[in-house]
């Protein structure tokens, strides 16, 4: 199953998009706890696009969701300023100051976070999670 979304780079789109993604994950048979974690990871990646790539300016965010029996891959693309979250160092935990946790959440939750540095304009980030084998 593959589904593609075009979102406006604005915080208002986050909640409705989570609803859509939750439905896809439910249909793909992900358990509730992991579903909520994946939603959090994708939400943090989208928030980073709004904050760091577009820096509050208008723009588009393209999200492709590829769901198969044993894994999910979410590809996030934008045309904003270059921002590679894989280069951000891991924070020392617990953090006693606000902020700096979003990328830690993505790293902790997803199996892979791949930044496509061959992408000439904007950013392309792949988030991959495999289903735990029972």
């Amino acid at each position, binding site marked *: 199953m593959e589904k593609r979304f075009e979102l406006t780079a604005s915080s208002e789109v986050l909640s409705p998009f989570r609803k859509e993604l939750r439905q896809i994950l439910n249909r793909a048979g992900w358990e509730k706890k992991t579903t*909520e974690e994946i939603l959090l990871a994708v939400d943090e990646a989208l928030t980073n696009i709004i904050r760091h790539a577009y820096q509050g300016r208008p723009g588009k965010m393209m999200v492709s969701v590829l769901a198969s029996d044993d894994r999910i891959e979410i590809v996030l693309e934008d045309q904003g300023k270059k921002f590679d979250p894989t280069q951000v160092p891991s924070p020392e935990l*617990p*953090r006693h100051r606000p902020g700096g946790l979003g990328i830690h959440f993505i790293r902790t939750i997803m199996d892979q976070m791949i930044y496509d540095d061959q992408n000439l304009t904007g950013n392309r980030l792949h988030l991959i999670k495999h289903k735990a084998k029972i």
Partner: protein
Amino acid sequence: MKIQLTNQGDIHVLDLFGELDYHSSPELREKLTELTMKQTPKILVNLGGVDYMDSSGIATFVEAFQKAKRYQGRLILAALTATVRGVFEIAKLDSIFEITPTVAEAAKCLSAKT
């Protein structure tokens, strides 16, 4: 996100409902800043109605917690749903904040110590 502010004696209670994310956290930040600016000594945040929270929500609580600490105020988070507790655990902040399973227990904690 819906925010209700009530008083239980000298405890200021914030009841939160809905989702706490990058879109809704500024509203909560504003309410908590109002309380910490007034050096409100006892703040109880009821998260029982919050079914989603991201790092913006966490950052809002970290900021308020640090501000309250500066004037020896207390901020207790109560009734976290499993999803929200999971977010605190990933951030390893569950041992930093005062967290109670219910609102009644949080109120008891705040009444017991001054």
